[in-house]
């Protein structure tokens, strides 16, 4: 009956989807957009300026092939490639920051967030990390469930491959200064683990301030710095360092030039409005110069050397900095970017390139990993 009914009717469907092939579609565009679309490095979707779907590799200008130490678009794949990358970059110890787990904060399903974080620990401990080879990783904590996150920290903190806890700073609400995260910070402090706050690259799709930006350049130039500025402001002014006097923070992937600027903003405002932050016992910058560290990448290579020297001094000196590559992402830094800064001494260079990280991330001493010499062989 129904079949006959439908066959006899003139039926119009006003919403069925045709899947455009963006590469084929490009052939119908005028230049230079034809070339830009054709060579766009994103996986799908129209070229976008957001953090997730953009043309990070600039139409093939940046390349990550099998010759590039096996790195793919998002990250290093497999233990073998980790080792080859370390050898290639002359890196003795490496902290592996996950890629897809960076979007953990988008999960509103709290149970799934906990499950995923637990699974990540087992995944990384199953041959993907090795303290003896200098390959470490952080406990990615589900900030959605602070009590469950604390359990996770207690369960895994003593594994030699675990060097920190990590919060992807860009995607969580409220910011990291909130007292709701006390269970997490208490557990981390108890085990001597620092907090790695990795800036999130969200872009204008997720940030009110950036909505309307036209290019990935506009987005990325500001996004991660802005993210870290928000988190550092929250952590310092809401008193995390008074609540947890032995807890250290490492802020990543925003370069270093923003740090002195932020310190002076916070100090100036705090001196005017001390009663908004009565828990503080000293200037915001004084906490930052004792308790926070900054991963150097992406280092501002436009700096003149003498200005970089001033900048390092303003943010608290070599004790505050840790080299990071961010390999294989598009804006990665080769170790020489920092190691060859002409104003560094042997001592300050050693601190920034490795010493600070070994101490704060409780990595094994470098000398303990050297091959043991035996007379017999």
């Amino acid at each position, binding site marked *: 009956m129904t079949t006959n009914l439908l066959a006899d009717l003139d039926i119009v469907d006003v919403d069925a989807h045709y899947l455009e092939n963006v590469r084929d579609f490009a052939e119908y565009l005028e*230049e230079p957009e034809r070339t830009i679309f054709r060579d766009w490095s994103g996986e799908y979707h129209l070229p976008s300026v957001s953090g997730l779907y953009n043309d990070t*590799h600039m139409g093939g*200008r940046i390349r990550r092939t099998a010759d590039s130490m096996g790195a793919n678009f998002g990250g290093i794949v497999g233990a073998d490639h980790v080792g080859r990358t370390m050898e290639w970059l002359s890196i003795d110890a490496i902290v592996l920051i996950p890629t897809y787990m960076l979007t953990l904060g988008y999960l509103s399903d709290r149970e799934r967030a906990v499950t995923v974080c637990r699974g990540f620990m087992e995944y990384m401990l199953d041959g993907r990390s090795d303290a003896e080879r200098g390959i470490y990783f952080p406990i990615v904590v589900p900030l959605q469930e602070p009590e469950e996150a604390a359990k996770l920290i207690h369960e895994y903190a003593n594994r030699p491959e675990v060097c920190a806890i990590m919060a992807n700073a860009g995607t969580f609400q409220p910011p990291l200064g909130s007292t709701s995260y006390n269970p997490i910070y208490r557990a981390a402090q108890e085990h001597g683990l620092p907090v790695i706050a990795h800036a999130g690259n969200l872009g204008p799709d997720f940030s009110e301030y950036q909505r309307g930006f036209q290019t990935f350049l506009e987005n990325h130039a500001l996004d991660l710095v802005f993210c870290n500025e928000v988190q550092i402001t929250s952590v310092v002014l809401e008193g995390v360092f008074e609540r947890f006097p032995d807890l250290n923070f490492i802020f990543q992937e925003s370069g270093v030039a923003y740090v002195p600027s932020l310190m002076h903003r916070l100090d100036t405002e705090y001196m005017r409005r001390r009663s908004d932050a009565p828990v503080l016992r000293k200037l915001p910058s004084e906490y930052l110069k004792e308790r926070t560290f900054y991963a150097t990448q992406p280092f501002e290579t436009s700096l*003149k050397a003498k200005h970089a020297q001033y900048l390092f001094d303003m943010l608290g000196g070599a004790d505050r900095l840790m080299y990071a590559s961010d390999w294989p992402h598009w804006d*990665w830094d080769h170790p020489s970017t920092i190691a060859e800064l002409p104003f560094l001494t042997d001592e300050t260079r050693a601190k920034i390139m490795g010493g600070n990280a070994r101490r704060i991330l409780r990595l094994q001493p470098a000398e303990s990993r050297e091959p043991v010499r035996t007379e017999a062989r």
Partner: protein
Amino acid sequence: MAGRMIAAARTDELLPGETKVVTADDLVIGVFNVEGEWLALEGVCPHQGGPLCEGGVFRHLDAEVTPEGRIRKFFRSEEHNVVACPWHGYEFDIRTGVSLVNPVYSVRTFPTRVQDGTVYVVVAEDQTSPDTESWSLTGGEAAAEG
């Protein structure tokens, strides 16, 4: 011309648009067939020391502001004449070696000669040591100070 001739490629080895990287002593040189013209460029990127000539060659994307104040992008020519470093995408003019973002920064170019089906790169006496000093510490100082 004083210096040396480095045999870099056979003329039938590279099609138009193709590149070959050769090393001679302490020099890394990229040899390019651009529409039948043979060009040679230093192969070490001044930014972070990346393998400049192991990436791709692109058309020079440029843009202008229209009388209405809009931005109109265009390619300067059909020719692929911009070399991009595969590490970070820094772009250099394939003929002059000059950076597209700041003319102070550049990589060296070398003359080429074709003899008996072989492409030679001509390296002068004073071009034997590669300039691998980094972008910010040499070019940056020079750009600002002088």
